[in-house]
């Protein structure tokens, strides 16, 4: 159980101190899933605190509502304390931890990585044997793409699964039933924990004012991403299963999913980035602000370059756009285990665990 020891004990200790104050107070019980989970216990192991940190959606309701925030000597700032534990729980459960730390914390490194990946693609496109395919497949054949992207997707996913296994052990997870998963997805589908409990939303871009903007932009991002992912999956099925070769027309499933998903993802990430500029950095883990921002913008580049590729496919920009888009996608895939992307996986695990504990 080395993973637990890697997490900064100070962050956990500070979160525990605050959680114990909350457990005597309970005023925030209806804001989110964290508080009911706290109130069902009296003592909190390191694993418990990490689980609570991943249940927290950083809605900040409990910060603005708290009568014990600084300058009060109790110094409550639960969103921040949990964000720091959460961040460290991701980094410590990921191998190699050093790479995770680098890309989580340094937006510059993440951006450079994207640039390198794009450059790599410029070069690959140049040396790739030109095929007889249509559209951009004339620049790089379908097979070449699959050879590049299949491992670049599958290996990172395997790494993430490994980290999740470690996390599951840390928090003492049990064997998973269908209803646990259903409960967790029910919560994710509506992003219930960003609703504030009353449906007015969270406290993000304008201090204690409740707003659903962040929740809506997140869902646009998340569903947009899933649609794009579905587009690729369907296309792969059509290619190998039904022997229907790309490019597909506008009214085909891959295109409909891809274009609507791309639009949602572009709008969502732009919205998230603009809200992020307004929000108080002191209520999250300030060390990773840059890395998070770079991640949001990477998603924006992925989706927007993808859309551009579709709309500008007949122009002379095709070559550059293809390199940019494929480079961004490649960087995104490779960085999945080492970037903010892991939040979805860990939070999903935390929500499943929470369903188990509720039962």
């Amino acid at each position, binding site marked *: 159980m080395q993973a637990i020891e890697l997490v900064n004990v100070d962050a956990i200790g500070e979160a525990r101190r605050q959680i114990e104050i909350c457990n005597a107070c309970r005023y925030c019980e209806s804001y989110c899933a964290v508080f009911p989970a706290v109130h069902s216990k009296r003592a909190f192991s390191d694993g418990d605190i990490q689980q609570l940190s991943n249940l927290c959606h950083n809605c900040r309701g409990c910060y*603005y509502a708290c*009568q014990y925030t600084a300058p009060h000597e109790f110094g409550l700032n639960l969103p921040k304390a949990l964000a720091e534990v959460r961040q460290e729980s991701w980094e410590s459960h990921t191998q190699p931890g050093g790479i995770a730390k680098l890309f989580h914390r340094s937006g510059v490194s993440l951006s450079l990585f994207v640039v390198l990946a794009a450059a790599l693609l410029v070069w690959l496109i140049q040396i790739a044997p030109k095929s007889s395919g249509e559209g951009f497949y004339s620049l790089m054949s379908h097979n070449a793409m699959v050879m590049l992207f299949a491992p670049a997707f599958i290996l990172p996913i395997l790494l993430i699964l490994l980290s999740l296994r470690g996390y599951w052990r840390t928090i003492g997870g049990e064997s998973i039933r269908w209803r646990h998963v259903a409960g967790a997805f029910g919560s994710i589908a509506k992003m219930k924990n960003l609703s504030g409990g009353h449906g007015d939303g969270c406290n993000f871009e304008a201090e204690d*004012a409740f707003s659903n903007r962040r929740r809506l932009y997140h869902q646009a991002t998340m569903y947009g991403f899933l649609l794009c992912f579905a587009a690729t999956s369907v296309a792969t099925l059509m290619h190998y299963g039904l022997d229907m070769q790309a490019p597909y027309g506008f009214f085909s499933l891959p295109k409909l999913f891809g274009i609507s998903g791309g639009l949602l993802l572009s709008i969502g990430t732009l919205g998230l980035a603009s809200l992020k500029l307004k929000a108080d950095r002191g209520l999250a883990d300030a060390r990773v602000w840059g890395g998070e921002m770079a991640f949001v913008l990477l998603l924006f580049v992925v989706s927007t370059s993808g859309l551009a590729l579709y709309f500008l496919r007949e122009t002379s920009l095709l070559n550059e756009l293809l390199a940019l888009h494929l480079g961004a996608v490649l960087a995104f895939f490779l960085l999945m285990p080492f970037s903010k992307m892991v939040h979805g996986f860990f939070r999903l695990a935390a929500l499943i665990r929470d369903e188990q504990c509720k039962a």
Partner: protein
Amino acid sequence: MYSAVYNQEADNNMVDLRANYDVIVVGGGNAALCAAISAAEAGARTLILEGAPKAYRGGNSRHTRNFRCMHGEPMAVLTDSYSEQEYFEDLMKVTQGKTDENLAKLAIRSSEECYAWMVEHGVRFQPSLSGTLSLSRTNAFFMGGGKALVNAYYRTAQNLGVDVLYEAQVTHLEREGDRIVSIDVTYQGEQHRLSPRAVVVSSGGFQADVDWLADAWGPAAKNFLIRGTPYNRGVVLKDLIGQELESVGDPTQCHAVAIDGRAPKFDGGIVTRLDCVPFSVVVNKEGQRFYDEGEDVWPKRYAIWGRLVAAQPDQVGYVIIDSKSLELFMPSVFPPIKADTLEELAGKLDLPTVQLQETIDGFNQACTEGHFHPTELDGLATQGLTPPKSNWARPIDTPPYYGYTLRTGVTFTYLGLKVDESAQVQGRTGPIENLWAAGEIMAGSILGQGYLAGFGMTIGTVFGRIAGREAARYASN
């Protein structure tokens, strides 16, 4: 209506102190906010003078969690029904008749419509919190607690154009005959004199002025902890009573409970409460018991322990439990002092070892066999012990042992201004034409003694709304 738009207008530097305000509201807690919102909605140009800095705005209201609400049938988060009659009887019980029946019934009757008004102005409610099921019928809980309520009201008020000044301490209201002609306020180190048409005072009680408490109660009060804001020092109350306005409520009394002795001097709030007394033996610093720890269920005995501890040497008590009882009560904010033997515990708590051992031995021998039931009066009583322990008397014999110190924590004071049904402040010869009062500063009219959980916020909401409306009406004439 409540809106999420952030209004910069009311930041301190934008407020023009030379402006002619229709209504000035003194204080920045629940009563003040209800008054300011109501005045602004009635068309008055309104200014709030809050003595505390922004981070501590909201007085004791920021520490609250619920208000007591009459209702004829299940209503939103409130279960079952709670009639005017029952509500009034509950009040009579705790005050032993020391109430103004008209004002009390007005507060009770209006509490029902307050619920919807509060929601309209941004307050959100939640079902009664875990550990407080006994209140789910009578009390509606604020989602996020009192600070969330205060935040929502400030936002609503500012969106209605109410100006707010923080760190604006009112020092004096100048009375001429039946009118208040001006208000003196210290703001950013400077004295200002403002002359609004009408004034609402809602600056709470005087419990944070420890010297005043000591004058009223005796020197023991210096050792009391103040559960709420350090900013309620009764400056305005003293000033007005000094100008021959009618007062109500016992000037020497305060509502006090027993809280964790390690709580901060001010603003410890709800988390410092300790619910373990019924399962314990409580001794004073000499190691002697002094009262029946198991007289009744804790919510009903919570308040008398403040006085009991206040009467002990150095105003301190020590709660001793053993490992059998550790999980029977709500978790405490500070962990208990833990020891493997009573001797070690006595050392850690600085209690006389031999006496503590003797007291516990005597208690243990007086315990009888029987069925222990933590959540109801189980009749498991000591025999031949003075003072007795009438329920939950189980020997303290299973290590590790745990101890807490207990101190007196003051919630509020009873002395207040006398008002009529329109919340208008009364002078010796009749009402003051342009002065209204709401909240703790006039609650003594209704709560002459004792306390009914959630009634403080009801009084503040009901009379704050009335005061704001009346002040605005006066100002518009």
